[in-house]
Structures are given as C-alpha cells and as structure tokens.
C-alpha cells in the first residue's frame, strides 16, 4: 500500500503553519521529502484570508490587534477563515503534482481528498457530503472548508474541520459582506455553519478528532501513514519563510 509521511498534530502560530506548508512543498519539489499529511492547530487563534482577498476588507484588524489574534494571507484562494485554537483542527496534504490524488480536474481532486474528511466524520458517527467546489456539509450546513494551490511542482490542499463554533467571535473578527451572507436568503450563519459538537450534542475531545482524521484520511485515500517530524532543512526553510514572508505586512497586506 502506498505510504505517506504523517506529521502528528502540533500547535504553531499562523506564520509558522503557513511557512511549514510551503517549506514541505519546496522539499517535495527537490525530492527531499515524501508526500506528507499534517495536522495542526493555530495558537494564537488566527484569521487567514484567501490569496485574492484584501486583508483590510475581510478582517477587523483593530479587533485582532486588541485581542492578540493573528491575521495572515494564504497562498491558496478561497475565503476568510477564523482558526479558533479551541475550535478546529486544520490539515494539509502536500503531494507531487504527478500524484494520483492531483488529477488535472481540480474539482475532482477536491472530491478525492475531501473524502478523507467525510471518512473521518463517519468514524465519529456523522454522515457528511462533499459539496463542490470545496466544502464538506452535514445536511445544509458547512463543517469544513478547503483550499488548493498547485505550485512548486506540488499540490497543497489544506482545510479546517470545525469541532466547536464561536459565532460571536467569528463575526467580530471577520467582515462579511451582505451579498455573501444573504445567499439563498439565509442571513444567519448558524443556519449555514455547524460543528462536530453541535451535531453530536456532546463534548468531543481534540484527541478524538485527531485520531479520526488520521484514520479517515488513511482509509479514504488508500494510504498507510508513518509518523515522522520535519527535517532540519524543512525546519530551517520554514523559519526563514515565517520571518521573511508570512509575518510581513508586504505579504499579508499586499492587496
């Protein structure tokens, strides 16, 4: 069975997390790293915006600064996401561009990889569906958002899985335009977004979700994961990227 490196659940800052993603891509490009699946949390809690968004449009910067919430621009498209340390686990999958999970059909690719989340949720006793382009929904409500980029001869797909949702905090951090919120005449985010805790109506430990994600992705993608850490070289690249790119205003506020 095909093998994949697993980087076990770790907690890092927003800048480190995005830097690690790119550092792994660069290592995979050089043939120095294998296909990799990683799980992570964000501390401090942070908001990330898609690569085509404007930070000032999407994020209440004053609120974030006052409440020590980090804000960062991703290299992937998509929307603004609040990464609550207490509310979600994020995964990243990094593959060579030629990998079978990176077909030219991008939406097909989203479906293949998001099957890992559907599988993980099933392990937790939840029925969910992949909703193209890039969502996982439980009924009508979104529980996971995902985003992909293809660069450095790699595919990177990362996404969040909501364990718990602090709607109040989310709306304080994000500026959501009316045009988007009133899609299908539904203005209340509680009708459009849900969390694992809300669906199961019980306390769910991070450990439960972590274990389900590792097993879910392994089963759905047909891969065997072996746990490793970043190489020295990847760590050093990640440090440099965090410092020189991801924590800079030049990158984050460039649009």
């Amino acid at each position: 069975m095909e093998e994949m490196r697993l980087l076990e659940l770790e907690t890092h800052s927003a800048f480190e997390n995005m830097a690690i993603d790119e550092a792994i891509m660069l290592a995979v490009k050089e043939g120095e790293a294998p296909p990799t699946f990683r799980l992570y949390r964000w501390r401090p809690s942070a908001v990330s915006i898609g690569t085509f968004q404007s930070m000032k449009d999407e994020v209440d910067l004053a609120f974030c600064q006052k409440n020590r919430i980090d804000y960062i621009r991703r290299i992937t498209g998509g929307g603004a996401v609040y990464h609550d340390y207490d509310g979600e686990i994020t995964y990243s999958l990094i593959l060579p561009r030629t990998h079978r999970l990176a077909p030219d059909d991008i939406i097909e690719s989203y479906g293949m990889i998001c099957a890992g989340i559907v599988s993980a949720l099933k392990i937790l006793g939840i029925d969910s569906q992949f909703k193209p382009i890039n969502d996982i929904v439980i009924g009508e409500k979104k529980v996971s958002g995902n985003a992909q980029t293809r660069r450095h001869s790699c595919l990177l797909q990362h996404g969040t899985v909501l364990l718990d949702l602090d709607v109040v905090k989310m709306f304080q951090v994000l500026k959501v335009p009316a045009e988007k919120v009133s899609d299908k005449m539904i203005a209340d985010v509680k009708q459009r977004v849900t969390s694992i805790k809300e669906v199961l109506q019980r306390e769910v430990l991070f450990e439960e979700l972590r274990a389900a994600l590792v097993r879910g992705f392994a089963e759905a993608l047909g891969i065997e994961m072996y746990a490793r850490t970043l190489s020295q070289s990847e760590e050093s690249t990640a440090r440099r990227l965090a410092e020189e790119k991801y924590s800079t205003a030049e990158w984050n506020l460039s649009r």
Partner: protein
Amino acid sequence: MELIEVNALREYNYKVPGGKLVRVKMELDDENITSIQILGDFFLHPEETIYTIEESLLGSKLSRKDLLRGINSVMKEASAELIGATPEDIVNAILKAASRGG
C-alpha cells in the same frame, strides 16, 4: 487654487449564483480603466494570473466585448483555470462597478 481631479474608487461586490464572490475596485478616466483590483474568494490557477489579468485591463474600454476578450486572452496564454467564477462574472462585476458612478 489648482483643482486636482480625483478619480473616485468604484467598487462592486458581485455574487456569482451558486459560486463565489468577485469584488472589483477600480478607477476610471472617462471610459478607460486606470486602475483595477479583482478580489474575491474564488480560485485561480496559477494564482499569479490575477496580476496579468489586472494589468491587461488597464487602459481598456468599458465594453463587454473588449473586457471579455482581454481576460480570455490572458487566461488562454497562461493556461489558467478559474474556479467559482467565470471571465463573464468578472466582466459583469467590472461593468456594475463602472455604472455605479464615481
């Protein structure tokens, strides 16, 4: 006192039915685009194509035909793929932003 003409920023949020949001911010000089930013939560591969699209629209007339041809030409040359929006959606957003008045 010399009056400096300020081009008001024209903005429009275009929600693609069943898709993503395209936000256009631009300045016009009479009928031509003098600055433009195409923002949103769509996907574009490769991502850098957005800059090429924006640059190619500078000096463009506000005709649907010209705008669409410009964007499609850039997309084709870059072998680019837009997901969650189409070139037509971007053109719609531009024309809506233009009609808003400075």
